[in-house]
């Protein structure tokens, strides 16, 4: 009996709360807020906040054309693989102290899983047999390589800070990062972590492929690159993955740098005099709400604002920017963390 209940619980995790439905709703909402705010910053009225939902459902109702030159199976499976990887990723990212699958994955798994959606897009683009997709995927590969180095350095800096406090050396476990922040306050309050947090904010638009780092999906020059041949539901799933990626990266930022806010929520629930499963449920619910609000703020800061004030960079400028400025900031953080600041 208990096996059935826990199986149902895990199914609920995967399909509803930190899993698919949550990702779907919050991801598209973030994307809608982003579009609306960019419009406001350009003195336009802008589309309704629910516009990405309309776009997604419309694409579900369109005809799906498979080009004659395409390899059909890979072409149609690639979007699903990318979406599945992102939903799995969201299950591992803790919402303050709560994780759906605790103790099963650490930061390194996140690093690998973050690659899969981009690789799925590359595979799908390559399978479509379009020259635009060829240009797009070569640029996407360079973007991945550009973002990867600063991201690894940021994660190392976080791991070192937490690890030297717990005595493990380098601590890659999300559980210990969350526990450390719950006890000692958010990591962003430490001097050594501020450059890493800024670097991570700069990595977010690069990983999601937003302005000004969207050379791989430049719709005005290479027809959205890898998506050029996609139509109908597979295109909708790629657009959905793009929206969910915004949620994934911003909630990763919350988990890494703003985890200290979670202890306040736990104390608040304890003050209300609740105990047992009700208290746990309320803590998770409030934690999720606070995470979503923080994700919205981070999206505005790192994606919308940057989108409104910058023009698209060339691919070699993206590479140079990430491997000098952003990596430099992350490296400063790592060195400071090594000296225990």
């Amino acid at each position, binding site marked *: 009996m208990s096996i059935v209940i826990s199986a149902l619980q895990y199914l609920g995790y995967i399909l509803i709360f930190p899993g698919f439905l949550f990702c779907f709703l919050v991801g598209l909402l973030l994307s809608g807020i982003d*579009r609306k705010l960019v*419009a406001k910053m*350009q*003195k*336009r*009225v*802008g*589309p*309704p906040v629910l*516009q990405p*939902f*309309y*776009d*997604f*459902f*419309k694409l*579900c*109702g*369109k*005809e*799906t*054309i498979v080009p004659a030159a395409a390899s059909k199976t890979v072409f149609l499976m690639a979007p699903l693989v990318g979406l599945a990887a992102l939903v799995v990723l969201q299950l591992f990212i803790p919402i303050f102290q709560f994780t759906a699958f605790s103790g099963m994955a650490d930061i390194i798994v996140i690093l690998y899983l973050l690659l899969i959606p981009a690789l799925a897009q590359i595979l799908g683009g390559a399978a479509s047999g379009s020259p*635009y997709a060829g240009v797009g995927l070569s640029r996407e590969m360079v973007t991945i390589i550009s973002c990867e180095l600063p991201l690894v350095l940021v994660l190392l800096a976080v791991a070192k800070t937490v690890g030297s406090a717990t005595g493990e050396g380098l601590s890659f476990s999300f559980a210990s990062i969350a526990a450390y922040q719950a006890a000692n306050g958010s990591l962003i309050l430490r001097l050594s972590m501020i450059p890493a947090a800024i670097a991570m904010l700069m990595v977010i638009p690069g990983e999601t492929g937003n302005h000004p780092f969207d050379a791989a999906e430049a*719709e*005005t020059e*290479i*027809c*959205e690159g890898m*998506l*050029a*041949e*996609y*139509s*109908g539901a597979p*295109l909708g799933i790629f657009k959905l993955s793009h929206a969910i990626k915004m949620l994934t990266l911003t909630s990763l930022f919350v988990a890494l740098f703003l985890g200290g806010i979670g202890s306040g929520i736990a104390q608040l629930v304890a003050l209300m005099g609740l105990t047992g499963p009700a208290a746990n449920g309320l803590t998770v619910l409030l934690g999720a709400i606070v995470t979503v609000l923080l994700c919205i703020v981070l999206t505005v800061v790192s994606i919308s604002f940057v989108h409104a004030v910058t023009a698209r960079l060339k691919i070699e400028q993206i590479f140079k920017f990430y491997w000098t400025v952003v990596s430099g900031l992350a490296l400063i953080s790592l060195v400071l963390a090594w000296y225990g600041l």
Partner: protein
Amino acid sequence: MFKKLIAESTAKSPWLFHINAGSCNGCDIELVSVLTPRYDAERLGFKLAGSPRHADIVVVTGPVTAQSLPRVLRAISQVPEPRCIVTMGSCPQSGNVFRGSYSVVGPLSKYVHVDVDVAGCAPKPQAVIDGLALATKILKEKREAK
């Protein structure tokens, strides 16, 4: 319910693909002006798509020259159903001042079914938005009829 949701969404999220069939560039510029902050067609969900496979509405400008006709037909056939074809300016309807020229093979309605005609040389942005809004209604009807 799901069918109704898709039909509603189809009317609210029309993506445009723009084909120049030998236009003088006047209408092309007017179409872009529709998307600028002053007229902001994005508030109705309009977005300029780069690839015909992403589009719902095809906007054709120009008098359809002999050189451009096969390309126009090929691009239109790449747009997934349900789709809507909107001609912009007087040229694709009548040939305008280019009528009778040896290289002009229009009007476009001789070759494909045209859903909306927006007349003018060049049409005002208000007229273009009106025509596109009409096209979204036709798109929704086409989706519901499916």
